[in-house]
């Protein structure tokens, strides 16, 4: 009998993803070796949810679970979108897809041709993709090219993406691929940028550096530590390294970007204030179903 995670028949962002996941037992930890993810007709998966699901599916496959993705609307709707986004192409080969995996993937035909999105791109520890942050940032630049601040916006996106992606290469310590993705939602005036990895979590890597950091930081809660990392910078390496998360925040806050950091069983949601991300605008959700790694998403506000 499979553990079933059923999504809602509407837009599914990271919040609704976690709601669906929390409505049942932990797919990752439960001894049941079968997991089924069901997309009813009308469901629309957003990229910040999609990237978490992709990482989760790979983690389930890694521990030997049998995974099925079922699209009740057939090949229309979410199935077609995920095919176009390269999500289906990135699934482990053992994962079953209902109705069926496309014989010819849409992403193979159309990759790189839509100016508003970058397909789910793997971050492979053994093969650094030197041009990945540029591709992601250039999509944004092409889409907002007529704005006065287009260059500054693309530099901000480039900085955020490159620092996040470099963190995956440098710190995640896993052979499982990480992922990066970007989608502009013109209707909502937002751009979602997301980077996921299934390795050593952000908190674990930050806490490893506590031996060389001021003792006051050892007393911080997990939420406060994450906020501190984005607000003032922390690192387990010396020599001035560790400003990456802070500079991401400095760029992102200029575009009133909300930041979500999904950790093993919790999430920190940072909303921007006038002086950046602060502890009193950080909201933690605990007791989430386990999910290895770190999953960070930025919502850039584009306006109009």
């Amino acid at each position, binding site marked *: 009998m499979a553990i079933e995670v059923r999504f809602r028949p509407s837009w599914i962002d990271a919040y609704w993803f976690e709601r669906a996941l929390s409505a049942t037992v932990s797919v990752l930890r439960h001894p049941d070796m079968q997991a089924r993810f069901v997309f009813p007709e009308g469901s629309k998966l957003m990229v910040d949810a999609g990237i978490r699901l992709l990482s989760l599916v790979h983690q389930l496959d890694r521990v030997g679970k049998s995974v099925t993705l079922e699209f009740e609307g057939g090949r229309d709707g979410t199935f077609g979108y995920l095919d176009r986004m390269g999500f289906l192409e990135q699934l482990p080969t053992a994962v079953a897809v209902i109705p069926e995996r496309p014989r010819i993937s849409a992403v193979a035909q159309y990759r790189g041709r839509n100016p508003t999105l970058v397909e789910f791109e793997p971050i492979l520890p053994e093969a*650094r993709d*030197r*041009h990945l*942050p*540029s591709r992601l*940032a250039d999509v944004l630049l092409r889409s907002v090219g007529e704005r006065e601040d287009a*260059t*500054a916006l*693309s*530099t901000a996106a*480039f*900085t955020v993406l*490159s*620092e996040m*992606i*470099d963190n995956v*290469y*440098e710190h995640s310590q896993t052979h499982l691929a990480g992922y990066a993705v970007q989608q502009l939602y013109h209707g909502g005036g937002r751009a979602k940028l997301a980077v996921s990895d299934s390795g050593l979590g952000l908190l674990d890597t930050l806490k490893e550096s506590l031996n060389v950091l001021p003792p006051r930081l050892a007393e911080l809660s997990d939420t406060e530590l994450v906020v501190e990392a984005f607000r003032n*910078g922390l690192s387990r390496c010396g*020599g*001035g*390294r*560790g*400003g*990456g998360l*802070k*500079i991401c925040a*400095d*760029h992102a806050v200029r575009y009133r970007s909300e930041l979500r950091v999904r950790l093993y069983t919790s999430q920190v949601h940072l909303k921007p204030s006038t002086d950046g991300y602060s502890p009193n605008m950080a909201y933690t959700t605990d007791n989430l179903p386990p999910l290895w790694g770190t999953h960070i998403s930025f919502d850039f506000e584009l306006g109009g």
Partner: protein
Amino acid sequence: MYSMNRIVTQLRLRDFMDSDDGWGNAYGREVHQALLEAVEASSGKLVFRISVAGVRRVDVSFAREAIVELAARYRGSEGVCLVDLPNADHLENWEAAATRRRQPLTAWIDGKPRMLGPPPSRGNKAVLEHMLNRGEATAARLSRELNLTLTNASTKLKQLLEQGYLLRREEISPSGGVEYTYFVIG
């Protein structure tokens, strides 16, 4: 920027990169190594102007590993500065890299120097600002212009040298002795 052809050389950062964008610690270290070889091959040069013409974007990690670490390596003996920055909008990540590494880095925009990175101490702030306007000075000249004792002027200039804000060159004074002319890196 004044000219010192005998002791200044220019390196084009883009020539050491395989694309217009630079990112990440690992790639920054690669480029740093290539720049280091070029610097070491230019013996006798005091100042290395790093032109960023053709470089579209850099992130903080790359800026730190490739260039700021180079400035830190040669602090006090040779100088590294940035030139050909299109405008101030491009400074943010360079500034963050220099600040985080606690290594001053001189950036030239429209012919004027701008100091990136950590600010000088309160006691040296006025001297540095004066030097940024002036370009170069001996301790004797500075002491006259800022109404400082010679010892005080000399001490402040030496501190700014050791901290990476300025460089100096050795010259023969009118009296025949050795004197140092301190200058903004550029």
